[in-house]
């Protein structure tokens, strides 16, 4: 096996740094479960191994040891399955996923779960900035703290944070729910169109058009259900924030855009 970093970079239409990488087939498979050590594998090899296990061999429970904070790990998993990463992930991990239930025992870098469509992701420690960018559905749970611009452009789904969140959290949020147990930095919910923010700690400042919302029974049901599901300690109370709709000009633009493409 080549040492990481020694491979020759060649051109590929998909932008792949290793267009000729092959599935390493290093997993130990026991029934419907598989385990492999990623310490000596490149990002593309790790992703190829994952896809081979899940798509071709029908494995539905995978453990990845020593992911080594490599970037772009576990992206594009479009299948119901369970994946456990024993260690930390780098930038853009777990992006564009649809269906998997994932646990990361360590930390994650920028933009984890970007464009997530569905599934459940639980991160045991901290996450960087832009966590859950443009997420469209599913549950993303970060038990530690998160950086700035978390859930920018969120279009759906539920995101929970056990610790604090940075500035511009929920920037341009369009739909979905954010539950933050700690404090939040400046500009919470700036330019949000829709969706709901719940904050248990202090809010340094609200962003443009983000206003306090009226608490309902549905809010109580959601909070209790999500905390019960993920076994997190629930703070005594939350503040709710929604869109003031002073900048509201959202319409059915998305399907219109699609028609132009088709």
């Amino acid at each position: 096996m080549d040492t990481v970093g020694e491979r020759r970079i060649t051109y590929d239409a998909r932008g792949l740094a290793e267009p000729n990488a092959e599935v390493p087939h290093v997993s130990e498979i026991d029934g419907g479960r598989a385990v492999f050590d990623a310490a000596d594998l490149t990002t593309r090899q790790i992703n190829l191994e994952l896809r081979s296990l899940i798509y071709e061999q029908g494995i539905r429970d995978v453990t990845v040891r020593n992911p080594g904070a490599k970037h772009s790990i576990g992206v594009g998993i479009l299948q119901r399955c369970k994946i456990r990463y024993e260690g930390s992930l780098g930038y853009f991990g777990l992006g564009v996923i649809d269906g998997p239930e994932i646990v990361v025992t360590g930390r994650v870098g920028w933009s984890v779960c970007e464009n997530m469509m569905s599934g459940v992701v639980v991160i045991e420690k901290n996450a960087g900035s832009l966590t859950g960018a443009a997420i469209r559905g599913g549950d993303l749970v970060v038990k530690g703290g998160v950086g700035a611009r978390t859930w920018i452009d969120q279009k759906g789904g539920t995101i929970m944070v056990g610790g604090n969140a940075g500035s511009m959290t929920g920037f341009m949020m369009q739909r979905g729910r954010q539950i933050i147990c700690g404090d939040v930095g400046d500009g919470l919910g700036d330019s949000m169109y829709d969706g709901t923010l719940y904050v248990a700690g202090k809010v340094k400042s609200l962003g443009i058009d983000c206003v306090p919302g009226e608490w309902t029974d549905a809010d109580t049901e959601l909070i209790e259900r999500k905390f019960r599901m993920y076994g997190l300690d629930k703070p005594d109370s939350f503040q709710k924030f929604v869109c003031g709709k002073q900048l509201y000009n959202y319409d059915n633009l998305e399907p219109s855009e699609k028609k132009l493409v088709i």
Partner: protein
Amino acid sequence: MTQSHLTTKIGIDAEELAGHRFPYQEDPSLLDDIDLMALTPGEDLNWLEDIHLLGEDDMPAVFDRYSNSFLKIYFPIPQGREDEIARKVLMKHLTSGNSYGIQLKGRHAKFAQPALGPWVEGSETVGADYHPSALEGWERPAGH
């Protein structure tokens, strides 16, 4: 499907893309086998929590994010079950493979993935043999 099938109205719906209406848009008994909890990851409805009954062309409709099109519902919807019915019609549409976005996968997917998405176990894998097209006479840039 050619572009000439499409109308010039701003919105777009699933039956316009398909050229026909689907039976589960008219017959609620076809939704009896849809188990929403079984079809979604985790312990609750997961991504379906964001799916609600909407309207399109003055008809009840649910939005299919996998084809960016509305799926109209033509049967009477019992009061209090609006979102449940919308979610069941959508999941019937997706698990049947009738979503236009799913049909596009076979032709355009660049990476291996289950044709019917994460909802149908054992679904055929598509996109595993993608080869980028190349213009005639095109040469790779120097150094690549």
